[in-house]
């Protein structure tokens, strides 16, 4: 009875909330007060899929949803990104019959890495995809091992873990867990023998802290590793990207399926690989997955094209406080090889909370854009002095750098001069300050 009341309440509040434009967590919050174990009582679909990790959650979830729908499955997922327990409760209960049976073939959840254990207290996913763990928003998250410890209690023994074999910390989730499927990237022309980047979080084995050895690096600490001291090592992937040509934009999966990449970034490759692996585990045919993921255009708007004055511009949304996201976008700019200006904006460090923390700037490898085709670097925003100081310690020649203490000043200056390509690297928290002033193009 309580369950039915909670479902009714949740549906009613969600309906009312939508009318007044309220968020999705409140109905779930009230339903949980009325019936705290409602998520244990409801009957969930036969596939309950969770995706977590520092980067790529949203993109991976979107791709999985598109593929499974193309395969004829009815997928319910938290597209609004309400990934804590209240939002998950709202999602589930609003899709339930009053008898407590959830409609749909698949429940797909993007799960906040710090709150997964609360979301999965009452039920557990059939499949849990963990993409990667990096330094990300340390002002909230502490550090990657802290996040690892937070995810661990959320992993039920019956859940099949779908893990990134190339991430040494993510691989530790396999310890003591029987049901593991691995995905990973094999050697390709962009892999390096030496570590690239400012810091090396793979230098020490996460299991025993002995020195780790790598035969190759894909980027940052992601690669093929083994620890001579304790034996922790990369597992042979069940689902492998067997070929990658980022210049041509071709990805080969499991030796026989070729995909054209719409966004030629190594990040995108891992998101596709995670989605591919999960969909294969759900029994979807390779051709069906390939037809959806081939040339898949991300709908989350992380890459936006526009014109500003005579510049053709591309906004590459990074995340402040996430040096790997920055590095990935800087690498993308490095590989374009056309004359360009790079605009870096740091004004509000987060859109969700206050912090004045700028240490992460020192973890970003800005030397990636110390190349001749990057002709100018424009820095702006409230934290422009922190940025400029960081660039004082980069190899980029000072004469290439111009600073503005506000975003409008920088935008105005760029509108008035130059016609080279313009790449903008910034965060969700700051990007609208630019997008409001430019002409968007498709």
């Amino acid at each position, binding site marked *: 009875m309580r369950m039915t009341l909670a479902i009714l309440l949740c549906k009613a509040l969600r309906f009312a909330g939508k009318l007044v434009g309220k968020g999705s967590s409140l109905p779930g919050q009230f339903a949980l007060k009325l019936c705290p174990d409602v998520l244990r009582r409801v009957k969930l679909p036969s596939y309950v899929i969770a995706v977590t990790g520092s980067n790529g959650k949203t993109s991976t979830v979107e791709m999985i949803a598109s593929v499974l729908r193309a395969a004829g499955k009815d997928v319910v997922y938290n597209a609004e990104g309400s990934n804590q327990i209240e939002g998950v409760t709202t999602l589930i209960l609003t899709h339930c019959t009053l008898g407590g049976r959830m409609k749909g073939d698949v429940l797909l959840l993007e799960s906040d890495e710090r709150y997964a254990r609360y979301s999965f207290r009452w039920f557990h996913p059939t499949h849990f995809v963990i993409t990667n763990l990096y330094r990300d928003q340390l002002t909230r998250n*502490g550090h990657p091992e802290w996040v690892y410890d937070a995810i661990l209690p959320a992993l039920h023994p019956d859940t099949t873990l779908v893990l990134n074999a190339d991430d040494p910390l993510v691989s530790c989730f396999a310890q003591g867990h029987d049901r593991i499927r691995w995905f990973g990237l094999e050697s390709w022309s962009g892999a390096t023998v030496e570590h690239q980047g400012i810091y090396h979080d793979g230098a020490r084995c996460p299991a025993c802290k002995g020195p780790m050895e790598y035969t190759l690096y894909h980027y940052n600490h992601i690669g093929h590793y083994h620890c001579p001291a304790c034996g922790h090592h990369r597992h042979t992937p069940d689902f492998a990207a067997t070929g990658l040509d980022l210049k041509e934009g071709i990805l080969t999966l499991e030796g026989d399926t070729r995909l054209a990449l719409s966004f030629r970034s190594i990040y995108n490759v891992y998101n596709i690989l995670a989605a591919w692996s999960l969909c294969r585990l759900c029994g979807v045919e390779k051709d069906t997955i390939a037809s959806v993921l081939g040339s898949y255009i991300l709908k989350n708007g992380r890459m936006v094209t526009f014109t500003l004055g005579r510049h053709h511009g591309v906004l590459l949304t990074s995340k402040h406080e996430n040096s790997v996201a920055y590095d990935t976008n800087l690498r993308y700019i490095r590989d374009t090889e056309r004359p360009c200006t790079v605009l870096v904006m740091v004004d509000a460090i987060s859109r969700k909370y*206050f912090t*004045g923390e700028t240490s992460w700037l*020192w973890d970003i490898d800005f030397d990636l854009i110390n190349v001749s085709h990057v002709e100018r670097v424009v820095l702006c925003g409230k934290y422009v002095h922190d940025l400029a100081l960081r660039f004082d310690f980069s190899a980029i020649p000072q004469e290439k750098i111009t600073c503005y203490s506000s975003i409008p000043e920088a935008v105005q200056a760029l509108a008035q001069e130059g016609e080279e390509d313009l790449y903008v690297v910034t965060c969700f928290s700051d990007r609208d300050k630019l997008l409001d002033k430019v002409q968007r193009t498709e």
Partner: protein
Amino acid sequence: MDFTLLHLYPEAMSLYGEYANLSVLSRLLEDLGAEVTLRTVAGGEVPDFSGADLIYMGAGTERTQKAALSWLMPRQKALRQAEEEGALVFFTGNAMELLGTAITDKEGKRFEGLGFASFTTTETDKRVPHDIIARTDFLDTPLVGFMNKCSVTAGAAHPLCSAMDLGAGNEAEGGPEGFFHGNLLATHITGPVLVKNPAFLLFVAKRLYEAKGEAMPPLPAGRPWLDRAERAYQVTLTELSAQIKGT
């Protein structure tokens, strides 16, 4: 003038851009006309403290910190001797905790510390990373920065900061923070504290000169990077101060 800066375990004890503390210190000393040698020590390698003017370690994860302790413990006496002979031992983030007598982790396991100071640290399962403003008795302006810890340090008799205007100190909100006694200089502030606090950077450089019985030469004019550091400091201080008023 020659200075040798020794960076302990930069690959491991590096939570958040800590290497930059040595980048700015080296740049400053070079601008003052000194020759700077930067040496790094890898985890598990036996450090040689001879000739070191500054011995630095930054923050790490809780597990890496215990590894760092095990790497350094066999050289405890040598480190103590180097400090007594004038080397400045500068430990930031949870590297500070190594200087005390013990660290107890959240499972209750106790690790003997280096024992250079009488404080003890207890880790908890709570972590509240936060921005900080801290006052000292030796600088005209407060320190700004960020703290990322899950521990409480009790019994630090000689704190570096007398009080916190924003954030938690060693044991309590607003309370004293860090440790500064003899040539031991420690703070739990995470990341490049010397980058964010140019006055503190100058203070450390001055100590290095004094340890050699010399006065720090006057700063040559036209150091744009130092001007930028100062402006960045002012912006951060203004932003963080607004948080105090807002609460």
